[in-house]
């Protein structure tokens, strides 16, 4: 069975995506810049926004999930591609020290490894993830999340101190 990728003029496609999102969800900010549809959403409706992107707007490819530790909150960026020139960039912000958000692996199964990496590096818990383990760091005895700003690279710290 083959997959058909969207055709047609890029600008009109991007406008269509923007309208599709605006019609269905209450968004924070939304705009079209260049070839990017930028959206800012609340974390609780994020999975629905992504489900709209995939099911209704045929934006099929989740390129990556970035987590930025803004000491005090976390900003997640989900970048979706329709593989023909259009980009949908969804940003959301999680407050607090113990961030929790719903998983999107049921919508975009590729998010499995991205979310595992986010958990490993930042400690973000994804509700409903089928297999939330660490990806890179040691899976036992290591309780730190390395990419947090509070985890300092220190030449004085020994290997034993880490575990």
């Amino acid at each position, binding site marked *: *069975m*083959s*997959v058909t*990728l969207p055709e047609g003029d890029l600008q009109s496609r991007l406008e269509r995506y923007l309208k599709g999102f605006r019609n269905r969800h209450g968004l924070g900010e939304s705009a079209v810049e260049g*070839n990017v549809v930028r959206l800012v959403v609340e974390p609780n409706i994020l999975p629905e926004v992504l489900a709209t992107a995939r099911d209704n707007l045929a934006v*099929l*490819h*989740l*390129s*990556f999930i*970035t*987590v*930025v*530790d803004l000491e005090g909150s976390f900003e997640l*960026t989900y*970048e979706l*591609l329709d*593989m*023909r*020139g259009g*980009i949908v960039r969804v940003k959301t912000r999680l407050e607090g020290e113990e961030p929790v958000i719903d998983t999107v692996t049921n919508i*975009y*199964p*590729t*998010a*499995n*490894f*991205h979310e595992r*990496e986010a958990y490993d*590096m930042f400690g973000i818990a994804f509700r409903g993830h089928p297999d939330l383990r*660490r*990806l*890179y*760091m*040691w*899976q036992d005895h290591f309780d730190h999340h*390395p*990419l947090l700003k509070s985890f300092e*690279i220190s030449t004085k710290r020994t290997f034993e101190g880490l575990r």
Partner: protein
Amino acid sequence: MLREERRAREQNRGGRASGRLAGPDVRDEFGIETLEMNMGPQHPAMHGLLRLILELDGETVVRCDPVMGYLHRSKEKISENRMYPSVVPITDRIDYMNNIAMEYGYCMAVEDLLDAEIPPRADAIRALLNELGRIMSHIPSIGFLLLELGAFTPILYAFRERERIQNMFEAITGARMMFHYIRIGGVKADLPEGMPEQMWEYIEGLEKRLKPDFMDLIEGNEIFIARTRGVGKMTQEKAIEMGLTGPPLRCTGVSYDVRRDYPYGWYKNLDFDVITDEAGDVEASYRVRIGEVQQSIRMIKQILENLPEGEVMADLGRRIRPSEGDGFGRAESARGEYVVHVVSDGSDTPYRVRYRTPCTVNMQLLKEIVPGHYLPDIMPIMGLIDPVSGSWDK
């Protein structure tokens, strides 16, 4: 007659051992268990340090769980502590078979933050080296695929090509492998005198050598076909769902290539085809890679014919200090879609650098596709993904 039948059956079956696994009642009666085995981090044929936790039923894999992280070098954390130009050598070492694309993605991301104009000659040289780097990576990939199938010779032929390209890179950039050549704003220095002619000679030679040295010796081989046709068969939906990009995706028939769909740099002026193949198995990925080498040769010829004159580095001032915001650089590395997301806070060092390496995502294929295949099929499937451990582990 027997051979045709066998091949047709293998293709339909996809090389899987369907129906061979003993049913639950037989298992309980005889106390049959599966064998849990490690294809450990130390292994002569792994593409790096990867631990595969396998559950085997005889020779059939029931579950395959990749455990990564043995080469994790915390590149993202290091990048936060280095000034923008000093991060380029860090990116070099992410995918050590195709370094130039890694540098390119990062530099594009920072240039996006700075809104910089790159001089056309720098763009052309970047694209030229990117394509040479792609050839440098794809030909050994094919060699590795065959090495894992047990043919020891093609890899040496492949490394002969790679050595020749590395010699050219050494003349241009000063290093055989970790180039540090694509810098923010352009490239480090112009091509040496006579280099375009030398490159032209090499490319013509490669074009003539590709068929007799590689394609003719590999494609018709019965054993190669028997080992790779039908193995690792994927549908297009599954491939997109798993987030595959690059040759693993294109071998199923989905035509997605960052160079054509999200064009960057000099690729807007180049004329090339995106190679896809409908079969979706290991043999298809081999054909996609050989096709991409041929397209790269075509692109290099186009660039060499119309190499613009001018300077090779934009004047971005002595200090690279972008304003606050996000910069995104998306490049097509030999293994797939490579994205760098740089978050800047206005200081000398990036606030956050995220490397979306294609191999991390492509490795999900192992979890999904390998169960149902035989144990010796794991290696050709790794040849389909063609991972590089620096790339999946960062």
